[in-house]
């Protein structure tokens, strides 16, 4: 009975636990509650993935109302993969959060932090599983509002301005999406994504639908920080508490990408999005710009969190590049990179959190000789960095390999060169940190710095472990990504 | 007939808007907002009769209450600020 209601419970359980967390006055209890729920969510995500793997796409009618009237939950392979990413990152960051939050947040905020974290988790999961366009907007707002709060809790006052900037841009993005959904509804008379996609061909050739497409695309692009609309991201990730940076970098923008995929392939359809609207060319151009410019900017950052944030913008470029090819190979490479990048960035930001805990700073010029004091943390950073660069035997290599292959199949050989060049850029910015930590003489106060606590190191290494595992044996995850891509594109081709 | 009344109400609202734009003091604007609130209440009531749906009166009732409370709130919030400044000066 509970198993058949898994899609709803997947979202509802974190939702219910959020108010419970607010009621628990003792921060330790709130943390314990959030921890249990996070791991429960991960367990459910695995069960759900297994169900989708065996049974195919799951549809769940909330309130037992038939589809165009009620709200439908619809989970295919791509969705299940997304849920797995969110749940994994959520479950891994939670044990890590305790020390980090104790350190970086004002004491009176620690209780609220867990509430907002659970709400954010709810929102992200809700976006992924829903099959209803407006419901997507609602859960998008839940995740956005809670992430504004989470970011604003950061230790410096600039966290406030970063959160404000994100709030303004995020709300513009959400309102654009709302306008787009409104126009779609106006022309089709329905909000269910499947239903819209079936009714769309009749009216696809109208100016209204084209505008709806444009607004949804721009709105989602703000949320996923596509290149010229990324300006909220560096500040938000730099000034948020480290665990929030790790969680958001690994999930929020990824969910944005997933929403874009849903709209392009499931809702509007491949034909309309790529052949009629030529979104592929535009996306490819923006992706190339993102990869090059953001990587270049990342090189010149002294604050490593900011550097990683710019690197995120570049990595989103890779994912979008894969999608812009609009082939099964391209999309599956994009999704694979989506998974890998979530693991890499999560781990890297968590390593930064460890460093911030002990060093009180994440600036390169303060890290001289750090490797001797915090060998495990720096080793994690190096491992993650190698994966980010795309060195063989790491996860980053796998996804870049598939990406290059997909590009070459379509005859876009300059893209392959581009990926190589940008990997070099990544090498440079990672190297700057490595150089400072391993090859510079330690500063005067460096001997006081100790290794990070196990409660933070182990989660970091867990994600690094996933990275290395995928690098060695990518079969399972590649298979899931390919199935996800096929289900996205296959629906479109029907 | 209802049309005539609602037309007059609209004109009155427009005149109130002019006062809200011209100010010159905050109080003039609050006063204009309060008056527009009253006019809106009447407008909703008249519209309800025009559409032959007198259920609309619930909305009118809410408007009366809300516009009253928000007028008072504006004045109180602003007054506390003025008295604050006053104490600063001393």
């Amino acid at each position: 009975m509970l198993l058949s209601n898994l899609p709803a419970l997947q979202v509802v359980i974190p939702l219910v636990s959020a108010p419970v967390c607010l009621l628990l006055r003792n921060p330790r209890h709130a943390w314990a509650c959030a921890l249990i729920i996070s791991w429960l969510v991960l367990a459910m995500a695995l069960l759900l993935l297994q169900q989708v793997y065996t049974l195919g796409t799951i549809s769940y009618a909330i309130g037992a109302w038939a589809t165009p009237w009620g709200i439908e939950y619809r989970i295919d392979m791509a969705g299940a993969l997304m849920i797995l990413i969110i749940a994994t990152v959520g479950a891994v960051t939670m044990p890590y959060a305790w020390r980090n939050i104790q350190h970086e947040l004002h004491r009176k905020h620690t209780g609220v932090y867990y509430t907002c974290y659970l709400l954010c988790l709810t929102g992200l999961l809700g976006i992924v599983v829903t099959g209803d366009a407006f419901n997507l907007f609602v859960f998008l707002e839940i995740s956005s509002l809670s992430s504004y709060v989470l970011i604003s809790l950061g230790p410096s006052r600039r966290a406030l301005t970063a959160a404000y900037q994100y709030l303004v841009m995020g709300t513009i993005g959400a309102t654009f999406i709302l306008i787009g959904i409104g126009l779609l509804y106006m022309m089709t008379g329905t909000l269910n994504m499947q239903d819209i996609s079936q009714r769309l061909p009749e009216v696809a050739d109208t100016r209204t639908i084209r505008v709806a497409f444009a607004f949804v695309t721009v709105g989602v692009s703000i949320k996923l920080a596509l290149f010229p609309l990324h300006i909220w991201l560096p500040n938000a990730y730099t000034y948020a508490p480290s665990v929030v940076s790790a969680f958001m970098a690994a999930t929020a923008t990824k969910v944005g990408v997933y929403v874009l995929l849903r709209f392009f392939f499931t809702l509007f359809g491949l034909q309309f999005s790529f052949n009629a609207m030529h979104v592929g060319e535009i996306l490819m151009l923006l992706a190339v710009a993102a990869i090059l410019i953001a990587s270049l900017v990342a090189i010149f950052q002294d604050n490593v969190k900011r550097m990683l944030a710019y690197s995120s913008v570049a990595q989103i470029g890779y994912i979008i590049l894969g999608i812009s090819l609009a082939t099964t190979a391209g999309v599956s490479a994009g999704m694979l990179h989506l998974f890998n990048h979530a693991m890499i960035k999560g781990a890297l930001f968590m390593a930064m959190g460890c460093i911030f805990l002990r060093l009180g700073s994440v600036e390169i010029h303060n890290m001289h000789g750090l490797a001797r004091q915090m060998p495990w943390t720096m080793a994690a950073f190096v491992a993650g960095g190698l994966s980010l660069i795309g060195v063989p035997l790491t996860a980053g290599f796998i996804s870049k390999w598939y990406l290059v292959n997909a590009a070459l199949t379509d005859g876009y050989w300059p893209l392959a060169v581009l990926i190589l060049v940008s990997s070099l850029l990544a090498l440079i910015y990672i190297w700057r940190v490595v150089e400072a930590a391993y090859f510079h003489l330690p500063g005067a106060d460096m001997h006081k710095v100790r290794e990070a606590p196990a409660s933070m190191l182990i989660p970091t290494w867990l994600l690094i472990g996933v990275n290395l595992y995928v690098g060695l044996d990518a079969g399972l995850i590649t298979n899931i990504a390919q199935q996800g891509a096929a289900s996205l594109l296959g629906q479109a081709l029907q | 007939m209802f049309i005539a009344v609602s037309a007059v109400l609209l004109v009155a609202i427009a005149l109130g808007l002019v006062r809200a734009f011209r100010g010159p003091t905050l109080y003039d604007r609050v006063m204009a907002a309060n008056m527009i609130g009253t006019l809106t209440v009447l407008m909703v009531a008249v519209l309800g009769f025009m559409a032959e749906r007198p259920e609309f009166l619930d909305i009118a009732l809410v408007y009366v209450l809300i516009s009253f409370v928000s007028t008072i709130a504006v004045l109180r919030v602003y007054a506390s600020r003025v008295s604050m400044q006053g104490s600063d000066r001393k």
Partner: protein
Amino acid sequence: MTELLGHYNYWIVIILMMTGFYIVIARPNLVKKVIGLFIFQTSVFILFISMAKIEGGTAPIIEEGLSVYSNPLPHVLILTAIVVSLATTALGLALVVRIQEAYGTSNEDDIHVQDEED
């Protein structure tokens, strides 16, 4: 002429939306930006409600003797959206209050200057 009347609502609503949007992106004052967002969102609500209207229809509360009702679904969506807009406004303003306390100003340009000094 019918074209004009048929789309009048939508066009004005678009002008309203753009007014709000302009305030958000052009004005440096943080409070005014939030107000701009509020106007932007409220105007989108009018767009939705306009599309729900049926000529000669009445409010979707079923009653004997009435047959034409306006579309209830956009109303429901907008009820939700109004709540979202309130939540955004409240959070945005709370952030402005905190920024004011931390920086002593609520002007974006001044905040940039202070941030660069850091």
